């Protein structure tokens, strides 16, 4: 009997939480010119610019650190701590003119020596293997007057994309792990593990100063708690929400739609039966109805793919591939029959349990595949299990997940399909794909490169390396009184232009 009463009380509490909204906090924050931002995970244990392993940490610390060049909201690279750069004709020597009178948050003035120190530290310490790999290609880095000269061993037409990711930190400063110091528009104030991170406006910023005086990132590892807090008015800005989460948020918030800049697919293990047969993989492409998927999971929001490039990466995106496999159960059955599976087969789709969009997609796909006679079971696994078993161990038949681009380069998305790549989770092997990729990476002519990368992307579609689904729609809930929030083509959150 006691239990029942407890249950009823709990139900009441859920209701009162859902209904009661407290607004007073929001007004107080407006008066203080500060905002609370909700984030879905704690930052990495180290905040050092070379130790940030998670996208969620990079997203926040983007406001604190800067490189010589900085990506802007259109995907261009703009001068930041360097005012200009020149490249030698052989593409091997980059000369950066270092901006003068730039102050670090600790008051020190930035010098070319700090830049050299930062590049050397990044080359030896960085946990990002992509950046580390590129910096290994650097033969020498020297400071000369107000310039920094970087010499490469071989040309790399993506080099500027990496320059924007090498953050500059003061030489011989040793407290980056806990008290990070950079040159960005905001300086780090404090961090409470599992609770919050506070940054404040840096008044000696070299460029256009931030509008807000202070930003507090509140950590909510439970998505429901995050949305509840937003609903209750204790947060002003939350990114990466899905369509159901922003439903009914009310007029206190503006909802801005974006995509997550990732390639969500039903990734197939090309190395195991029956997915080693291209006809089976193509049959799956036909059996899946991506439009219905978008309607069911996101109310029709989201961008269809067709290959391993997302649409906002327009340089390499080929819109004609989107409808390469129009939904057709008959075609799917026909291909399955040809492949020797007239009655379909059983398969297991693994989904990382902490990413509900992937789990939801997997559930819808399992339902859609039934029509073609394929009996799919969804198995949820912990993220760490997914990393070890599926991503590294390649012990899977099919999995729903999303791959993003760590830098704005075609290699970041396509490189993982090269037969020799350690990241080739799907075990995709294609001689023509390998040839296109190899050639693209050996030349510097941008137009020709682009053409080759596009051809490589078409190989993935033709061979149905996986069932490419969508770049997921995501939504930002921004308090209606706030202005100036813009999306980036990368996983970043720029708060410097946000204002009341």
């Amino acid at each position, binding site marked *: 009997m006691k239990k*029942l009463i407890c249950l009823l009380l709990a*139900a009441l509490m859920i209701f009162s939480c*859902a209904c009661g909204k407290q607004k007073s906090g929001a007004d107080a924050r407006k008066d203080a010119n500060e905002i609370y931002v909700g984030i879905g995970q704690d930052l990495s244990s180290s905040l050092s610019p070379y130790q940030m392993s998670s996208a969620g940490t990079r997203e926040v610390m983007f406001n604190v650190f800067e490189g010589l060049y900085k990506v802007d909201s259109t995907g261009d690279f703009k001068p930041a701590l360097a005012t200009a750069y020149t490249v030698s004709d052989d593409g091997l020597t980059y000369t950066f003119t270092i901006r003068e009178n730039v102050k670090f948050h600790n008051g020190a003035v930035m010098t070319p020596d700090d830049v050299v120190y930062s590049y050397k530290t990044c080359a030896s310490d960085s946990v990002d293997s992509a950046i580390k790999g590129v910096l290994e290609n650097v033969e020498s880095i020297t400071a000369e007057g107000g310039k920094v000269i970087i010499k490469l061993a071989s040309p790399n037409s993506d080099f500027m994309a990496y320059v924007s990711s090498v953050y500059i930190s003061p030489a011989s400063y040793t407290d980056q792990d806990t008290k990070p110091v950079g040159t960005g528009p905001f300086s780090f104030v404090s961090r409470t593990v599992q609770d919050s991170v506070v940054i404040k406006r840096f008044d000696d910023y070299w460029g256009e100063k931030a509008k807000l005086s202070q930003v507090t990132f509140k950590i909510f590892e439970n998505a429901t708690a995050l949305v509840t807090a937003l609903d209750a008015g204790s947060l002003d800005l939350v990114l990466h929400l899905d369509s159901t989460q922003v439903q009914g948020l009310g007029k206190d918030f503006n909802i801005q739609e974006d995509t997550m800049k990732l390639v969500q697919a039903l990734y197939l293990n090309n190395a195991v039966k029956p997915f080693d047969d291209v006809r089976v993989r193509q049959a799956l492409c036909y059996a899946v109805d991506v439009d219905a998927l978008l309607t069911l999971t996101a*109310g029709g929001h989201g961008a269809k793919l067709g290959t391993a490039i997302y649409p906002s990466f327009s340089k390499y995106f080929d819109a004609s591939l989107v409808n390469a496999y129009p939904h057709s159960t008959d075609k799917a059955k026909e291909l399955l029959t040809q492949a020797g599976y007239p009655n379909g087969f059983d398969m297991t789709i693994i989904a990382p349990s902490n990413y509900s969009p992937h789990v939801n997609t997997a*559930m819808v796909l399992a339902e859609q595949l039934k029509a073609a006679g394929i009996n799919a*079971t*969804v198995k949820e696994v912990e993220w760490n299990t997914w990393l070890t078993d599926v991503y590294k161990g390649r012990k899977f038949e099919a999995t729903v997940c999303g791959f993003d681009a760590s830098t704005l380069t075609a290699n970041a998305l396509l490189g993982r399909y090269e037969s020799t790549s350690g990241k080739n989770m799907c075990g995709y092997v294609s001689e023509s794909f390998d040839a296109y990729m190899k050639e693209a990476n050996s030349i510097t002519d941008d137009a020709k490169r682009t053409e080759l990368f596009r051809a490589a992307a078409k190989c993935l579609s033709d061979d149905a390396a996986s069932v490419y689904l969508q770049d997921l729609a995501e939504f930002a809930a921004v308090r209606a009184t706030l202005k100036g929030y813009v999306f980036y083509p990368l996983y970043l959150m720029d708060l410097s232009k946000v204002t009341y």
Partner: protein
Amino acid sequence: MKKLFAKHNNWFFKAGFILTTVMVFIVLLGQVWTPYDPNAMDASVKAQGPTLRHLLGTDFFGRDILSRILEGAGATLQIAFFVVLIGAVLGTVIGALTGYFGGVVDEVLMRICDAITAFPSVLLALIAIAVIGPGRLNVIMVLGCVFIPSFARIVRAEFVRIKRLNYISLARLQGVGDFRIMLKHILPNTLPTLLPAISIGFNNAVLAEASMSFLGVGVSASEVSLGRMLSDSQNYILRGLPWYAVFVGLTIALLILGFSLLAEGLQQRR
């Protein structure tokens, strides 16, 4: 059955019996017939409130909530049944052996039981699931094992009490063997204590399944269970669509109310 009614002719027993019977009947019906395919998705009726077509409304995938509750309650009850079966059978065996024979094994096993019951059962189950992984079978095994100590204690106490009674001494004098005494002479006399414990066990098992699936360590994504649905329904409450949570919560409440009343009724005589 008649005898059970004669012995427990009280309000709790009647109400609990009727409620449990009705719920179990509905759930069994759900195993052979549901208004819709519980997994069929229909984008045209996404996230609707109760309508004539969908009596309890639909979820975000346009799936019929009534059908899913019927199927989910079936899964939950099935899990509860096997959990109680494992807990009651193994608990009875352990309790009977330790209670009857006593000695060092009894001491050791009962200290282990003390240690296990010192932790909240769901917490223990969570730890175990973290080690062996989620899934329906694992949940059944883990919860079943977690439920053993409570049954073992109850049965042990009864065996310790009853084995000292005169009729057991007489049976021994008549040459009845130890195992026959345990099975045929003592066990039937533990039923008045065991039956309410089993009923409470059902109650706890339903709640434990709900808690574990709610925390995401229960049944897998392609399966339906009440706990899983309650977990999903959180998102609906926040989006101003409370009926999903209400209906699922109500189903759980009715199930455990039935079992609680039944247990209460079995404990009270007349």
